[in-house]
């Protein structure tokens, strides 16, 4: 979504102000490191444009031999439900599993990862990745859920 708007005449200025406030609602994007909206003033003209960022993951990506196939199948890792640094990569900030078109995993690995993510969440190992208004601290959960548990992950 690239935002490029150029103001040519000052008579259109009020209209542009209105538009730019609309654009401002979209400007929650810059803190998410995807696009930065810049306003450049050149005399009577104001140019508002969105610049795309490079993903923060790029320098830390694991190199695999083939880009087309599933990265986890190629890496052949023995992932447990306690490996939260790996599992948290497949999860949104509210704890939802990301779909396969984004994770680029094969169906088998995707299912495997989603069961491991569920285990990690039930064991309370990823408390920061939870819905906004939920009890993030596992100690505040109800009944038996508040106690430490582990799983036998094959």
């Amino acid at each position, binding site marked *: 979504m690239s935002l490029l708007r150029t103001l040519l005449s000052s008579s259109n200025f009020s209209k542009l102000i209105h538009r730019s406030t609309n654009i401002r609602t979209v400007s929650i994007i810059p803190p998410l490191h995807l696009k930065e909206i810049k306003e450049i003033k050149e005399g009577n003209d104001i140019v508002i444009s969105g610049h795309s960022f490079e993903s923060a993951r790029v320098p830390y990506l694991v190199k695999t031999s083939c880009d087309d196939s599933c990265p986890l199948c190629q890496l052949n890792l023995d992932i447990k439900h*306690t490996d*939260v640094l790996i599992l948290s990569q*497949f999860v949104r900030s509210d704890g939802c599993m990301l779909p396969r078109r984004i994770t680029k995993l094969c169906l088998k690995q995707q299912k495997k990862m989603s069961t491991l993510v569920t285990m990690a969440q039930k064991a309370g190992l990823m408390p920061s*990745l939870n819905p906004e208004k939920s009890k993030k601290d596992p100690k505040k959960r109800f009944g*038996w859920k508040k106690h*430490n*548990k582990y799983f036998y992950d094959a």
Partner: protein
Amino acid sequence: MAVLKRVQQWATFARIWHIYDAAWQNPFESAGVLKKYLTGLYKPIYHPMNDCGDHIVVINSAEIALPGDEWKKRVYFHHTGYPGGATWTLAWELHEKDPTMILKKAVYSSLDKNLQRRYTMQRLHIFPDANVPSDMLKSISNQIKQLRLVPKRLDTYSEEEIKSFPKIYDYPKPYILK
């Protein structure tokens, strides 16, 4: 008796104090290990009639872990002896009443069922947290290794560690991060 031999004799029969951190440990797996030290089974001088068991200080017993849904499936049975006096307490309910009880019962039932059992249990000191009396801590000379790794929570890692951990995949170009 030579001085060296005398000291060796003392050292052989002295009670050793061990410490065991029960955080994220299965109490029933741990009981088997604790039994070995409590009864002195690991000693070359061991004999059932030889009172050579050690002391164990167990800390963080409130932080024990059970596999799967065992917290709500494991039941502790008690009967008062009167009609209708039976009670069934779930593991998580018992743990909330007394966070040392599950481990204590696990060790107690793992020991041999004989007259020595009550006296052996007196050498087991369980604490729900890490607050151990200092005179007890002074006599401790050995730590028993934990059976399972304590898992590290995601929020205990620093931002930098999470960011620089190797990434499996990258987000597609038009993806909006949530």
